[in-house]
């Protein structure tokens, strides 16, 4: 972790990172684009997931849904990643030590594993159930995981803005460890 610590510290000290952090309009504009891209990215994923759950668009074949809707999801994803990297670049050290950000990254990882699992195993016999109103259990499980995980990514992302668990505040040993605080302030060691 030490080398990552050095990297984010260096990143936060670069002139453009400071400029972005302190900018009056650039940071809020990038953050707004990031949030609005959620509607494109998670919104379109959610519609595909609802189809996989047999809860909506039941007359649309799953293959039609994925071929016509997922390109928009990918477009939304690119916007999310680019704006997300810029937001991290603007505030790297605090974000790196945010318990919300770290949990968000874990959920992102789970989301990718789920996508891989869906394509590797669930879709193998898709021609058999492509037009069925209610897809098989495997794809429904994958859809529930996808919906849950992406919605949690949104919640964790929003909570990064709150400073409850920041390293510059007294924290429990667990939070300080999870956040990787370089100079932790332990709540139970503060003398009243």
């Amino acid at each position, binding site marked *: 972790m030490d080398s990552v610590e050095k990297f984010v510290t260096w990143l936060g000290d670069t002139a453009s990172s400071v400029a972005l952090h302190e900018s009056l309009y650039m940071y*809020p504009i990038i953050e707004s684009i990031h949030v609005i891209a959620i509607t*494109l990215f998670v919104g379109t994923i959610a519609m595909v997931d609802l189809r996989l759950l047999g809860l909506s668009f039941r007359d649309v074949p799953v293959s039609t849904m994925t071929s016509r809707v997922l390109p928009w999801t990918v477009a939304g994803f690119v916007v999310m990643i680019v704006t997300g990297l810029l937001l991290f670049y603007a505030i790297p050290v605090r974000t790196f030590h945010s318990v919300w950000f770290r949990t968000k990254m874990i959920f992102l990882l789970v989301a990718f594993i789920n996508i891989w699992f869906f394509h590797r195993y669930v879709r193998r016999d898709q021609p058999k159930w492509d037009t069925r109103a209610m897809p098989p259990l495997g794809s429904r499980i994958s859809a529930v995981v996808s919906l849950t995980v992406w919605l949690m990514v*949104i919640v964790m992302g929003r909570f990064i803005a709150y400073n409850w668990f920041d390293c510059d505040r007294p924290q429990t040993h667990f939070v300080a460890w999870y956040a990787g605080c370089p100079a932790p302030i332990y709540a139970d060691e503060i003398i009243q």
Partner: protein
Amino acid sequence: MTLYDVFQAIEKTPLGAALRESLWLFPAIEAVHLLALAIFGGALLILDLRLLGLGLNTFTTSSIERSARPWQIGSVVTLVVTGVLLGVSEAVKLYDKYAFWVKMTALLAALLFTFLVRNRFAVRDPKDGLAMKAVAIASLAVWFTVAAAGRWIGYS
């Protein structure tokens, strides 16, 4: 009694006070507001993309509207309820914010347009490509204004 007095009275209600005093309540409601936004975005885009000829083009606009309807209504109700709760907790602050009034104006226009014009238009399975594109662009533009002004309340 001015409108400002009304906003002050709303903020002073026990509900407003409870929301302000809790550490977790406001962020939790905010999170639900965002989740509903994602679902609403999907339900909105699926029909607007179809109207633009960029989505489920082999299906009629009426069938897409019907599939999206419960999710659109469910999410918009959630957005309004959570939005009102967020607003009650800081009504006076909102009163002074230009972005808040832009959002409320755009929201009123967006709701009226979506449920009285756009969805009824889609149900009739229109064939006029130009009209379909115009309705979709108007829908996307007005909702984009709502979302952008909403985010801006936090900065202004």
